[in-house]
């Protein structure tokens, strides 16, 4: 498997939040979810790390190492980005508004 797995709000079976840091979130525009956006995870220097296509309900998920990340979304409704701090193992949530 190397292509982006299906993005869902629920974590895939086998995800161990006592060991992994998982970043989940939603792409929105004017408060409504934006499906199918291209969501990019950029490291603290702005360098590309990973990209997924958000689900129809705007959900995305990354397995990120602890640190500060930028989540950037590209969509037909516009682009947007937000910063998120990911700590030790656990679930971290954020939201990207596009306009």
């Amino acid at each position, binding site marked *: 498997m*190397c292509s*982006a*797995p299906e993005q869902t709000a629920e974590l895939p079976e086998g995800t161990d939040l006592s060991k992994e840091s998982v970043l989940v979130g939603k792409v929105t525009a004017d408060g409504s979810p934006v499906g199918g956006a291209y969501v990019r995870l950029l490291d603290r220097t702005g360098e*590309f790390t*990973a990209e997924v296509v958000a689900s129809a309900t705007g959900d995305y998920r990354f*397995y990120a190492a602890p640190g500060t990340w930028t989540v950037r979304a590209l969509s037909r409704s516009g682009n947007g980005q937000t910063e998120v701090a990911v700590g030790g193992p656990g679930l971290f949530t954020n939201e990207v508004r596009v306009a």
Partner: protein
Amino acid sequence: MSRQDALVDADWAEQNLDAPNTVFVEVDEDTTAYDGGHIPGAVKLDWRTELQDPVRRDFVDKAGFEKLLSSKGIANDDTVILYGGNNNWFAAYAYWYFKLYGHQAVKLLDGGRKKWELDGRKLDTEIPQRSQTSYTAQEQDTSIRAFRDEVVNAIGSKNLVDVRSPDEFSGKLLAPAHLPQEQAQRGGHIPSALNVPWSKAANEDGTFKSDDELRKLYEAEGLDSSRPTIAYCRIGERSSHSWFALHELLGETDVKNYDGSWTEYGSLIGVPIETGDGKA
């Protein structure tokens, strides 16, 4: 090889959807995107089930490739335009694979599915009907394919370009950050490899950077153009993307893709592995 021989842009593609002897092919590992809507007239290729041997860990053989292309309705004199998701990773892999089996008239759609979608261009769910052909492939051109012994022998002598992310290169991660980390092999990279992530060769919309930007990128990372180059990643698809940039766009002559990549190398007994950022 040069950019105009190897790459077409979305405008060109849109104007040539019905051009004679031109076949658009969407390539992905997960083909559900194709099923939900694809470039009108495009046929689909499934990287995993159609380009990989179902039993041995290798490609389909020459006869298998001939059978596959014949069944897709692709003829020897057709120009094949490849595109896909994941910033064209699997389309670039298929491009390399078509070249490996001697199909010369093959081009990549710059930006792939991402740019097409972001531009709001037309997608279609109709499955095209193409009549069966009798395709003839050539023997594999191994001047563009590297195998493990050659890679081990290249340590310290050829350019080894590891195109994975820095965290995979250093050994912190075994797979890209959007994937579960399930692999059992060791982490790290091949000693003497440069780390030039594939993504540095691409713009945000999935198109390739300009020749000037690409040349500067590889120069700045220390690639020695007077030596042969071998690119690798985890399973050989991201390195196909960088192989495409180096061999097809920049016209570097001796560039191979090591499709065994880290899943093979990181599982070998006794080979040297380096961890860390490689910039000691």
